[in-house]
């Protein structure tokens, strides 16, 4: 028996499905998809409808809790006439810029520090208590410090976002580096990998699943950092918009701002999932969105 023919036997192929069975499967899947979508719409309708109804009937005070129609109206005026701070897209753009910059800076520093300390036991032993202490501080308060030291412009928000992102990415990168399969490391070293090659070709790719898993959480944290930074003092941004609405006792404005942030976060989440599937092509099961 030749090697080749033996191999062909080894590659398992699923038995060809009966065409009818396959069609039936497809129909079932479509039906299920439709059911899920319909139930989602229903859930949203019940939620928003009961909110609208109870506030309209004054069972719940719309002054404090807003109402869906009011939120929609507020959003509409923001889009058509702009906000008190300027055009709406500009507020979103400012917050996005702060978020993305903070996310990128925090992620880069987190990976760098995680790999460095993960690879060097001496360094990690020395710095462990400092990192634990720094991590136990509620870091959003650092935003106040940054507002003083870096001013009310972009930098203080980026710093706040980056600090929040850093620790999450750092801990994951660190753990990822520590969990690298020892056999893989031994194999690479025997194959002739030096320290640098070992880091770039074995340690980093191996830790990548851990790091990317942390990005899902940390983008949300970057958004929190940017918005909280704006609350500490800013002239523009969605956080400032919410802060403004709050000062005018405009509950609908606060909710509209929240809806904007949620939309931004959902889009970012989809982008990160796409990035994940691209970077970790080699993994057996591609990541699917929980909402998909």
């Amino acid at each position, binding site marked *: 028996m030749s090697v080749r023919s033996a191999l062909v036997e080894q590659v398992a192929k699923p038995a060809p499905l009966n065409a009818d069975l396959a069609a039936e499967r497809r129909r079932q899947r479509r039906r299920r998809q439709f059911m899920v979508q319909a139930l989602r719409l229903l859930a949203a309708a019940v939620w928003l409808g009961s909110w609208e109804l109870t506030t309209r009937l004054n069972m719940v005070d719309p002054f404090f809790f807003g109402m869906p129609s009011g939120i929609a109206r507020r959003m509409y005026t923001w889009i058509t006439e702009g906000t008190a701070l300027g055009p709406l897209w500009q507020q979103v753009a400012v917050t996005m810029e702060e978020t993305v910059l903070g996310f990128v800076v925090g992620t880069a520093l987190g990976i760098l520090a995680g790999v460095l300390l993960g690879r060097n036991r001496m360094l990690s032993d020395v710095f462990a208590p400092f990192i634990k202490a720094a991590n136990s501080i509620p870091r959003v308060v650092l935003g106040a410090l940054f507002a003083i030291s870096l001013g009310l412009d972009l930098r203080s928000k980026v710093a706040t976002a980056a600090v929040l992102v850093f620790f999450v990415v750092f801990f994951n990168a660190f753990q990822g580096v520590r969990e690298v399969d020892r056999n*893989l490391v031994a194999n690479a070293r025997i194959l002739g990998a030096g320290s640098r090659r070992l880091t770039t*070709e074995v340690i980093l790719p191996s830790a990548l699943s851990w790091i990317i898993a942390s990005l899902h959480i940390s983008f949300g944290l970057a958004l929190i950092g940017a918005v909280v930074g704006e609350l500490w003092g800013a002239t523009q941004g969605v956080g400032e918009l919410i802060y403004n609405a709050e000062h005018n006792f405009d509950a609908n404005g606060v909710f509209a701002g929240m809806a904007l942030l949620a939309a931004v976060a959902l889009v970012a989440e989809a982008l990160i999932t796409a990035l994940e599937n691209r970077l970790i092509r080699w993994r057996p099961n591609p990541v699917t969105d929980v909402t998909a």
Partner: protein
Amino acid sequence: MAPAIELRDVTKRFATPGGGVYTALHDLDMRVDPGEFCAVVGPTGCGKSTTLALIAGLEPVSAGEVRVMNRPVTGIEEGIGYVFQTDAVFPWKSVLGNVAAGPRFQGTPGRQARERALDWIARVGLSGFEDRYPHQLSGGMRKRVALAQSLINEPRILLMDEPFSALDVQTRTLMENELLSLWSATSASVVFVTHDLEEAISLADRVYVFTAGPGTVKGSYPIALLRPRNVSEIRFEPQFQRIYQEIWTDLRDEVQVSYERQKRAG
């Protein structure tokens, strides 16, 4: 002629997490001639894998000396190939990337490494699978990748740690024949660790039997079976049966000792 591998009075102790000391190998003497295929059998926990780690330079000896190519081993040296028991191919690299890894790590230009890798992929019968990732391959195919990955570096010493123990019986026999034909085209010395005496005799020029831990050599048997061998048929030959009987009486006692210990520990 100087031996390719020589272990002299080698002892290896490990610190256990409980603060004690565990002796894996005790006064081990062993030699492998250039181009010799040598198999090591012994009961579970007799220090077979540890022996390989010492030869590869992955672990330092506690006492004694390990010499490879007539030089004392002080760390990971060039010219050594190692096929691990578990999958040690890189899951994020394609078959091509995995096989080309050795030359790339050593600084061979990409194009040249690629050509050599393609050649080795063909030699282990994986042409057409260059772009697959390990998780898309069967266990036997992943072993072929691991073999090509080691052999592309043209090692003078090939260390194999129960490489086929996770494969089903048919695939295993196939891979054993495959290994023999690949090896016969090289001049590499092989140390092949296994717990399967049949596998050891089918493949090797010499079989070392280790005692139950702490491991040391209980016996060394030359295997005078002719080459080329067909692993799936050689076990039916009378000479094979005789050799098997002889070694098994040695091995049986050690397996018994190891088994009794496990029962007590359990």
